[in-house]
């Protein structure tokens, strides 16, 4: 039974990962900004599913609420406000720009491909299943919340300061006479 469930997990992982990569490609290549935004929403949902596969259920919920919900609505709202529903003729760079971009992207992918063989040092790595055991003990939210309000309390409070600064900045930038 455990064997079947482990294989189903791996299968689910690759399905979600495949859809995420395809929809991310669609997001980058669509001319219409609204289509781009909606493909990005698909990618974000797939990432939320991947978070569930990787034992981060609370973050998966946050991903759907904050990213796919709030942030993408903000993007769509601005697209609507500026009436950018039609892609323009100059949405992509010229042939030279496309070529340079493709070459740089391939180089970056080659550099990042070493990550595939990365293993955390055995001295600090947790045994397999440690995260699931901790979640069974503290609860899905408690696993994240306990350290967040304990060891990471000051960074958490500074985050509120950052958000306040962002609100003030956005209001100032949106004022008519700038």
């Amino acid at each position, binding site marked *: 039974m455990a064997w079947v469930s482990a294989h189903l997990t791996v299968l689910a992982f690759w399905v979600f990962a495949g859809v995420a990569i395809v929809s991310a490609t669609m997001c*980058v290549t669509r001319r219409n900004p609204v289509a781009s935004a909606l493909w990005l929403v698909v990618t974000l949902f797939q990432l939320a599913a991947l978070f569930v596969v990787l034992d981060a259920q609370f973050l998966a919920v946050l991903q759907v609420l904050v990213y796919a919900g709030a942030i993408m609505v*903000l993007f769509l709202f601005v697209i609507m406000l500026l009436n950018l529903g039609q892609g323009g003729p100059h949405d992509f760079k010229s042939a030279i720009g496309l070529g340079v971009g493709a070459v740089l992207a391939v180089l970056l992918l080659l550099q990042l491909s070493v990550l*595939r063989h990365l293993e955390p040092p055995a001295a600090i790595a*947790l045994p397999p299943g440690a995260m699931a055991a901790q979640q069974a003990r503290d609860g899905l939210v408690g696993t994240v919340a306990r350290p967040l309000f304990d060891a990471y309390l000051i960074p958490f409070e500074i985050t509120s300061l950052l958000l306040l600064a*962002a609100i003030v900045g956005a209001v100032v930038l949106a004022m008519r006479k*700038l």
Partner: protein
Amino acid sequence: MLLGPSLAVSAVLFTIGVAGVLVRRNAIVIFMCVELMLNAVNLTFVAFAQRLGVAGQIFVFFVMAVAAAEAAVGLAIVLAIYRHRETVDLGNINLLKG
């Protein structure tokens, strides 16, 4: 489990985001590509959190807060630029070009 595949998927998503920033000219689409890059990094954090403890998940929490702030300010900047120049095409915004 699944650490290597997660990092590979994250690398591919990050590269797609970088390619988008390099080849697109629409400021809003470039912003969306930046969000895609942030999400690829989040996937790396979550994958490592499974092996190295919950701190990685807490970092994702902070990355989400920073991304929300960045989106709010960035889109306000796009709106301000649009009011000045009637376009969000970055090819036309070349004040700093030598």
